[in-house]
């Protein structure tokens, strides 16, 4: 399993703080860009992400002495992963992600809600041993299951 492969999630934007970043609650901490996606294909994507995260954590732990940021990494469940929020997949990043196509013209996060996109990011492991998904690209996308409509 290649854990450095990007994570791609297709779905509808349920929450967006990519144009106006989420303000930090801790003074001195950077603001972060947050995107929450309601995936189109059901729950299998949650299992897939969890499986890849477990694999990535094992790899990060085994190679922790090669990465100065992970040298003190713990492999515990002390800190929770920040991958999901209910039925949504959460992406977060400190660098503003790129939007493509018509999404480039959008001025406010509110206008992104309900847009069908593909978010592209990576699994990131923190030194506390917990994981999150970063996002660097938000692409306009076409639905894979348009034929599911029974009245079409």
């Amino acid at each position, binding site marked *: 399993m290649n854990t450095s492969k990007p994570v791609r999630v297709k779905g509808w934007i*349920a929450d967006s703080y990519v144009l106006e970043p989420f303000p930090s609650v801790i003074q001195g901490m950077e603001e972060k860009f947050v995107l929450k996606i*309601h995936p189109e294909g*059901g729950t299998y994507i949650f299992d897939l992400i969890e499986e890849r995260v477990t694999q990535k954590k094992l790899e990060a732990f085994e190679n922790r002495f090669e990465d100065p940021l992970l040298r003190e990494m713990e492999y515990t469940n002390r800190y929770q992963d920040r991958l999901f929020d*209910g039925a*949504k997949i959460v992406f977060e990043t400190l660098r503003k992600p790129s939007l493509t196509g018509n999404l480039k013209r959008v001025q406010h996060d509110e206008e992104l809600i309900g847009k069908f996109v593909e978010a592209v990011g990576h699994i990131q492991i923190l030194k506390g041993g917990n994981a999150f998904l970063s996002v660097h690209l938000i692409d306009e996308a076409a*639905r894979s*299951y348009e034929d*599911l*409509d*029974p009245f079409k």
Partner: protein
Amino acid sequence: MKQAKGLTLSDQNFINSTCRSIFKFEKHGVNDSELRQQIYMLGLYNYRQFHKVGTPKDIRNPRILEETLV
């Protein structure tokens, strides 16, 4: 005693979260076809989780007893 069938608290939370998102999408103007797809996926999850069989390999086939019925 562990229930053989039925939705767990975690399943119910997932369903509640999905319902909230779908309504939010409706308010933000998703088209009818997208709305029907979202509601189909919600129904599929509900049905299959109740029977403890998880998501099918092919989401177009919601059957539990046979993979396909020809």
